[in-house]
């Protein structure tokens, strides 16, 4: 549909993003093996911030092969649901996300009413969640993808 750094999103693409909660992140390993996984994200300006760090499979793949293919949408509606595919260079970053991205992650995935309800239903598992992430070997981090191509997918 369009390409180039800082590609403008089509109206349909913005609509897909509003309804898309996890982005499918495709990467290739150092040995050229494919890997795909759904991850939380926020799109801020010209960059997509993805909540996985350098110790994950995706993080290690990006370190070895700094490119990612992202697919947004399709969570509901089956194969016919609209999707948007984005590609671009990716990099892994240690530490905290920039505040502008971090706040959006918190608002969308932690503090939204349905997110709060989800956590309320699983109160007893919250400490387990903390342990689950505290056990990461390589500390906190995140992924940044700078879109260079944007394409709406027809089913």
């Amino acid at each position, binding site marked *: 549909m369009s390409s180039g750094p800082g590609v403008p999103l089509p109206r349909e693409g913005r609509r897909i993003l509003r309804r898309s*909660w*996890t982005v*499918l992140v*495709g990467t*290739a390993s150092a040995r*050229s*093996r*494919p*890997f*795909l*996984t*759904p*991850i*939380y994200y926020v799109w801020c300006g010209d960059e997509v911030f993805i*909540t*996985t*760090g350098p*110790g*994950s*499979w*995706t993080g290690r793949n990006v370190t070895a*092969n700094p*490119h990612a*293919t992202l*697919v947004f949408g*399709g*969570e509901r509606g*089956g*194969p016919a*649901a609209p*999707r948007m*595919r984005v*590609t671009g260079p990716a990099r892994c970053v240690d530490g*905290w*996300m920039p505040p502008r991205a*971090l706040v959006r*992650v*918190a608002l969308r*995935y932690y503090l939204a009413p*349905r*997110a709060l309800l*989800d*956590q309320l*239903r*699983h109160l007893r*598992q919250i400490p*387990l*969640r*903390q*342990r*689950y*992430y*505290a*056990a*990461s*070997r*390589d500390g*906190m981090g995140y992924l940044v993808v700078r879109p260079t191509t944007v394409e709406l*997918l027809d*089913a």
Partner: protein
Amino acid sequence: MPHPYPPTEPYQSGQVPTTDRPARRVIRDVEPSAVADLVDDAPRAHLAFVEGNRAEVVPVVTRRVAAQQLVAVPGGARGLDGREVHLVRDDGQYWFELRALAVRGVLRAIPAPDDSGREGGDPLPWFRLEPGRTVAWDYGQLREADDE
């Protein structure tokens, strides 16, 4: 300090040290049978493969016939016969709702199964997935591992 946001991809770790007893791993993985509904009726299914040292990702249609996992590629991606792929079927929005079934395997081209055509459209290319490593997870089942 706890993570302020939840990566939905697992880290390859890890034990949490305690002072009085061996730590038990916290896991989100489940048996594939625990998310069997995703095989037959996943809200979304996608396939990744490598083309020119880059990952390509395409939405797919999946079907189970007997014990075989069949995959159709609506986009008509070419040259997938014999290719290694990573098939992911997933569901959920919020943290404890997130579930998925991820299968690494090799595609083998097959004739289209019965009743698989598209009315008024081109027939889809169908493949049988020769499954390799399979990983299933359900964050709603987050728990301490039983094996330690």
